[in-house]
């Protein structure tokens, strides 16, 4: 089933056209890789899906993006609610200027998520006083991001004190904490050391059970390793997209073949 339907999406910054009438359907609960040479519009495509593009003043967007049938570029859409459904993991982690604990608790707090109603919180804790529930929640998402064991003794330390690999997993926990349906990740491992990168990749594989994960990468091998579905962009045009097996096994387009074989990069 397709989760996201993109129809004739064009994006330009000032006079510079970045995406050219891109149309595609993105399937649910899979890992989707957006690949292509740098400057081909991968990040722009990603940021169009949670309207993070809006932050840029010069940007002009035309076309439709529908998530579960709902056009997210409708003028009356609640952008904050949209971003809660579509989480975003940036290329480099920028921890919020607060403790590790608060970084994870921030999202649920601003969205007023009723901590006690979440499934991860047990009955006993629900009855307990104070923010036991929040504590359980923070632990849950830190575990989900594979960071809990490393930080459980210093939850109140500033998040900026963590290593960059840990910060990236904290960013992942932060995204998960708002219970999104879709996770967008912009080259999530490019700033990381190999071990941290591996940890993030492993988490992705676990998370795809429940989330639709769309990630941008310029590393072809990473796309092969992780992705179930590939979207290939070249100079703002959508060249080819489809299940990873078919995409790598029998690519249709000449450009795809050239890219896979490393002739263009």
């Amino acid at each position, binding site marked *: 089933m397709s989760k996201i339907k993109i129809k004739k999406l064009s994006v330009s910054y000032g006079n510079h056209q970045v995406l050219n009438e891109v149309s595609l359907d993105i399937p649910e609960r899979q890992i989707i890789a957006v690949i292509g040479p740098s400057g081909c519009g991968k990040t722009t495509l990603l940021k169009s899906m*949670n309207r*993070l593009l809006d*932050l840029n*003043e010069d940007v002009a967007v035309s076309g439709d993006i529908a998530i579960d049938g709902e056009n997210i570029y409708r003028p009356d859409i609640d952008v*904050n*609610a*949209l*971003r*809660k459904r579509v*989480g*975003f993991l*940036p290329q*480099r982690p*920028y*921890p*919020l*200027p*607060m403790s590790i604990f608060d970084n994870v608790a*921030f*999202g649920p707090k*601003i*969205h007023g998520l009723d901590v006690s109603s979440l499934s991860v919180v047990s009955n006993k804790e629900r009855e307990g006083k104070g923010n036991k529930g929040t504590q359980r929640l923070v632990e849950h998402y830190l575990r989900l991001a594979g960071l809990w064991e490393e930080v459980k003794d210093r939850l109140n330390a500033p998040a900026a004190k963590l290593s960059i690999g840990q910060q990236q997993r904290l*960013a992942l926990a*932060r*995204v998960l904490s*708002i219970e999104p349906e879709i996770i967008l990740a912009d080259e999530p491992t490019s700033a990381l050391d190999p071990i941290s990168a591996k940890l993030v990749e492993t988490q992705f594989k676990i998370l795809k059970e429940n989330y639709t994960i769309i990630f941008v990468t310029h590393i072809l091998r990473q796309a092969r390793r992780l992705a179930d579905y590939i979207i290939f962009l070249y100079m703002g045009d959508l060249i080819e997209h489809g299940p990873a097996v078919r995409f790598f096994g029998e690519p249709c387009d000449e450009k795809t073949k050239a890219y896979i074989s490393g002739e263009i990069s």
Partner: protein
Amino acid sequence: MRPKLKMPSKKWVTRKESGNNHSEMNQRLNKRKVKDNVASVSARGILIFVNFLALLIFCGIFWKALPILSLVSLPELLFSSSWHPMKNEFGLFPFIIGTMAVTLLAMIISLPVCMLTSIYLSEYAKRRFREVSRFAIDILAGIPSVVYGLCGVLVIVPLVEFMGELIGVQTTGYSLLAGGIVLAVMVIPFIVSISMEVLRMVPEPYRESALALGATRWETVKYVVLKKARSGLIAATVLGFARAFGETMAVLMVVGNVAQIPTSLFDAAYPLPALIANNYGEVMSIPLYDAALMSAAFILMLVVTLFSLTAHYALLKVGKTIA
């Protein structure tokens, strides 16, 4: 047509052609080195002189102020309220209180305005609007102090008088409140432009992180941007304080200049800078009057310098920690 490249000098060409003019080349090199030395030594000398100037002023004022301490003790000078130069009573307390009161009042009035303005300009406004506003703020900052004073006399003083009438307080309008308002307007452009710079220093991805979680602009400002920029904003405020503390002309024109400890906003006050500016011309006839005013100047300089140093130190640190 393309302009022809100029050769440095004709000598150069001939030298190249003749091929063995080492002494001439050395001579030229020496000349260049001498010029370089002259430039660097004279620039350094002037710089040292300028740096010394600050110290010189400090020492000079201190030296001129010293005689007052032979007559009155330091605590008496600072905390006595009787100011009767004719009777050799030099208590600066009313003036110190006056300065602090006007400054504090100005900060209380201006801070909310400054913070909201700079937050709006940095976080909400479109680039175009920001540029236009920045220009307007620069113009405000460049208006001479005496013009602010005039506006104060023409607008603020009558307004304060009217306000006093409304709530049944006898006032001429020349008061602490008028001084505070005028001073507030004067420091606003100053604090706003520094605060805005500080806020713009917070890297965009931090905002993006919070916004991507579905935070609103205001939540982003409150929990992320302000936290990141906090020490810088404090520094901007302290610099504003320093500014307000020493501002003379505009305040002098509207504050009333009565040597008393003001007990209400509608009372006249007499800040230190106004005291010095008003009286320095007539000090010759009274012994030690001169020294008393110098001690006032010294206090003023000391406080302003301390403020500025702390703020600059904080701003230096901000640059390192904000990213």
